């Protein structure tokens, strides 16, 4: 038997938002620790070769088309991962049950603004 459930309004967006949350969680799981370790720990501790983060070198790297695509994957889906979890942190841990629609719009809206900023920076660099 096939049951078709037709959702209306915000509920119809839920599976898509959940898919973005899951994709962002997977991207963050695979890529966030290595970037945090390189930029935040290894650089400050002086473990990197002298020119590893040199301006010209990093600029060349960031201008390579494949690296641009990589940066879009690194930066965009994790924003929606945050948006989804933070939306439910506000409800479940902070106990804010009112204005659910406004909370969702604020969370995903922030992720959308971050997406715009990320794409603009990646394209223009």
């Amino acid at each position, binding site marked *: 038997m096939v049951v078709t459930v037709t959702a209306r309004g915000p509920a119809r967006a839920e599976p898509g938002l959940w898919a973005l949350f899951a994709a962002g969680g997977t991207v963050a799981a695979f*890529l966030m620790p290595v970037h945090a370790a390189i930029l935040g720990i290894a650089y400050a501790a002086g473990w990197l070769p002298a020119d590893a983060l040199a301006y010209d070198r*990093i600029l060349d790297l960031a201008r390579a088309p494949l690296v641009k695509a990589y940066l879009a994957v690194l930066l965009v889906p994790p924003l929606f991962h945050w948006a989804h979890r933070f939306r439910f942190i506000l409800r479940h841990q902070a106990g804010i049950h009112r204005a659910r629609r406004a909370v969702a719009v604020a969370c995903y809206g922030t992720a959308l603004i971050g997406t715009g900023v990320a794409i603009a920076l990646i394209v223009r*660099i």
Partner: protein
Amino acid sequence: MTAPPRTGGLLPPMPRTWWLRSAAYRRFAARELTSVFVLAFTVVMLLFLLALSRGPRAYGRFLGWLGSAGAMALFAAILAAGLYHTLTWFRLSAQVQVVRVRGRVVPRGAVAATLTAAWLAVSAGVAYVHVWW
């Protein structure tokens, strides 16, 4: 079969600190909280790209900030939250996604171990391009 009691939607509200009650609830809250550090990471990476796009002087100032104690503390927190997210996410993925090979269900532990191995390989590749390419 007994019907559930009718409460008219007037169930007593959960106390706000329900998630402090047990270790499992606290771990759930910690997993959710890692997302705040995911946002912090994304914002820092956007600032990195912004500095890079503005030229060598702005980029130099960003590198100066990267060397500061405050940035190191922030990144240490991002790294700790990131590692917790990574390892719990792989366990979670193994629970959510049943993987079959030739019709046989792969044990969850093997799925999580494969993801962890893939993560280490990807991290090594990213580090190589980022630092030594």
